[in-house]
């Protein structure tokens, strides 16, 4: 038959074409090794689908540790700076392809989870509004705290989100790049959820102001988020080393400041002010936080801190970075203490003892999960004392 196929005929369904194809196919498959990426070292017992689809997608030359490719870059930046290079970070690795998302999420699994969260959010909000649940929220909590201060916290999440852009560009491995983009998207999702909650409240409560003007003024000019804003600006734009960006954001600032604001302030207090809406959103953020924690702990603790050649060096660098970023974060928390003067006091909940206990939980968690694994010596009581000095 003719080799020209017209009219959109398909080889699978057109009997004449199919017959030619079948006649050409070997009687036995030519190769018995059917596992893609069979040559790689899996994290677990066998290569999983995430590893098959993500690992070694990056064409890394062998002079970047872990790479399978060879030679130079075929086009460089003006002036000759290479596409990717070891100099983009102070960290050293024997294999930049070693990182794994502990949840083994490739794109399809990642968006499936988020899509479910979105669909459920939509159903939840409809039920919540029909139920008239919003009536129980304390008006000051609703209009000032959620309206202004939760709104302002959205900028912290948005700034952190943007800190992932250059890390997405500059990092040296494929699983790293995918993880960084995903945890970045979670951060802008947080900022968007905050705005979604405020827009939702405005639909239910006629006087509620959903505009970002006041929160932005609070974030840029107010005292409560001053330390946070300065730290976020420095993580986002003041820092060029992609590992330092990730370390400062995800190993210091967010597990301390982010966790206190989200979990110990908005999540813990909301129930006391009759607010069952905010926890719905903050709990999603907390889910993202725990997934991100798994990812960044894998990057810094599971891979870099125990690297066969550079582990000790990397750990000492992480200690130096902790010295640099911890005081700023403590200062951010100290400034944030000002918020307790803005809300109606509830004994045992918003008083100094309760705040101290909340700070204790956050700092102890941080010490256990982030400081101890790199042997970072920290006096949490002293840090908490510094933070509490901001309480008015």
């Amino acid at each position: 038959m003719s080799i020209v196929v017209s009219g959109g005929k398909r080889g699978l369904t057109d009997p004449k074409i199919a017959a030619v194809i079948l006649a050409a196919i070997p009687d036995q498959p030519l190769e018995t090794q059917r596992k893609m990426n069979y040559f790689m070292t899996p994290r677990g017992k066998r290569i999983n689908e995430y590893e098959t689809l993500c690992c070694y997608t990056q064409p890394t030359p062998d002079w970047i540790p872990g790479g399978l490719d060879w030679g130079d870059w075929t086009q460089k930046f003006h002036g000759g700076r290479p596409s990717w290079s070891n100099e983009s970070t102070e960290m050293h690795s024997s294999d930049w392809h070693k990182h794994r998302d502990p949840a083994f999420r490739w794109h399809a699994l990642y968006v499936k989870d988020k899509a479910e969260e979105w669909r459920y959010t939509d159903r939840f909000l409809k039920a919540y509004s029909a139920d008239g649940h919003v009536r129980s929220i304390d008006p000051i909590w609703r209009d000032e705290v959620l309206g202004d201060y939760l709104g302002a916290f959205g900028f912290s999440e948005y700034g952190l989100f943007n800190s992932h852009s250059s890390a997405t560009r500059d990092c040296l491995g494929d699983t790293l790049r995918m993880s960084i983009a995903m945890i970045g998207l979670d951060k802008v999702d947080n900022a968007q959820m905050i705005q979604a909650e405020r827009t939702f409240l405005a639909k239910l409560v006629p006087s509620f102001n959903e505009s970002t003007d006041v929160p932005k003024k609070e974030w840029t000019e107010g005292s409560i988020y001053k330390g946070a804003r300065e730290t976020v600006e420095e993580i986002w734009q003041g820092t060029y080393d992609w590992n330092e960006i990730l370390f400062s954001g995800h190993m210091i600032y967010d597990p301390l400041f982010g966790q206190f604001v989200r979990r110990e302030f908005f999540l813990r207090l909301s129930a006391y002010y009759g607010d069952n809406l905010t926890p719905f959103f903050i709990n999603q953020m907390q889910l993202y936080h725990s997934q991100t924690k798994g990812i960044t702990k894998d990057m810094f603790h599971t891979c870099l801190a125990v690297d066969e050649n550079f582990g000790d060096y990397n750990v000492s660098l992480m200690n130096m970075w902790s010295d640099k970023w911890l005081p700023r974060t403590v200062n951010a928390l100290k400034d944030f203490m000002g918020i307790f003067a803005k809300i109606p006091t509830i004994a045992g909940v918003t008083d100094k003892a309760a705040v101290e206990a909340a700070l204790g939980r956050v700092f102890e968690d941080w010490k256990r999960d982030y400081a101890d694994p790199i042997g970072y010596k920290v006096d949490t009581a002293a840090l908490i004392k510094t933070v509490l000095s901001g309480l008015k």
Partner: protein
Amino acid sequence: MAISLATKAATDSLEINRAPVSVGAQEVHKWLQSFTWDFDKNRTKYSTKYKMANDTKEQFKLIAKEYARMESVKDERQFGSLQDVLTRVDAANRVHPKWNESMKVISNFLEVGEYNAIAATGMLWDSATAPEQKNGYLGQVLDEIRHTNQCGYINYYFAKQGQDAAGHNDARRTRAIGPLWKGMKRVFSDGFISGDAVECSINLQLVGEACFTNPLIVAVTEWASANGDEMTPTVFLSIETDELRHMANGYQTVVSIANDEAASKYLNTDLNNAFWTQQKYFTPVLGMMFEYGSHFKVEPWVKTWNRWVYEDWGGIWIGRLGKYGVESPASLRDAKKDAYWAHHDLFMIAYALWPTGFFRLTLPTAEEAEWYEANYPGWYDMYGKVYEEWRARGCEDPNSGFLPLQWFIENNHPIYIDRVSQVPFCPSYSKGASTLRVLEFNGKKHSFSDQWGERMWLSEPERYECQNIFEQYEGRELSEVIAEGHGVRSDGFTLIAQPHTSKDGRLWTLDDIKKIGCVFADPLKSL
């Protein structure tokens, strides 16, 4: 809080809306532009000579969660088809063997492009100042992760289910051996991520996506399905649904710099360079993959090219940008000439170097030769005759001791590599426009095949220093190079690459290559 305000708030809560309402993505997105704030250090980490405007908007108005919902719906459909009906009908074993081989290259090389586009759009997300513009690029970052995974899925699927897994199963390790790899890296990898951020956007979005995505992703599905492959259309058409947003991003990049003075000075030069960069590789390689990598033919490449590259892109798409001062690239005319013969020239060289591939190549059959001659008059005298000679000398048979590369050497037709595009060319035996230019710089010789690349190199030689495969392999014996690059099957000695896809033909081994004693030489050294 004042009492009156508190009272008002309390009253409000009695007047609340009780209708079941939710919040839509666009209601959130409309605030996005206000999410950023001004501060001293707020500037991009990647220099660009252009200034992107602070108020640039985007068209698609997605938020993170809505993005995920949309993509997840498409994934369900796509992976559902692959895992269900296509697997049940054993579709991977109903693909023409030639096309099974082409997909080793197409899917893996596209994967590299998709992968680098993640980093490229990460850079643009950093460079843009407007949150909406950042958001558009961010969506693309995630899309490109999706596409990377999808391309991988094609090779994964063919490896697991198909007729010849070798090459599908290890493309990421073996792809670097052969002559097509470095050129691919120029267009799909470094061209997207290394340079002025806007220049990279022009390469990726304005040319790569807006111009070559149609032929690459859409035409490939037509060739695939004609040759029995329904996996590729299932995946690639799903990829294509995201590309509209990417082309819009490219459009917005131009809109965002349109009022900047730098645009009037540099934009058309950057566009011309980007177009030439992309076409220099894609024009021959796509044509070669379609025409020489298939049994059943859809239409001559030159027609596809004229329709999509010359008319649609060069005419309509660029025309639409005319109001921003964008002109059709000056190199478009030369490219049009390339679209006729360049892929025939390249196939000849690729076939001559077949042992360095991670796929099997096939010489045109008699009926294909007729098709070529009918569509490209003059084809037989230039190429067809030579292929007959190669075949007569036993180029498909491991016992022949004949590699077509020898024919080039015997007839004194040296193969050079263009420094800028890394595309191989044979100036003394080609019908395309390639001409040899050799320049010396810092004690090293550089060959070029066209004036556009040569100009790029002359103004910035430090950007194009990459060694080519002949410099890298110089003095080394071919079978050694293949073994080192893991170009063998799981038995440890049969080559992944083969010079035929005949089911009765014998397969070449490392030993068959070794006994020929082919040693690489750098043609620039003998000039």
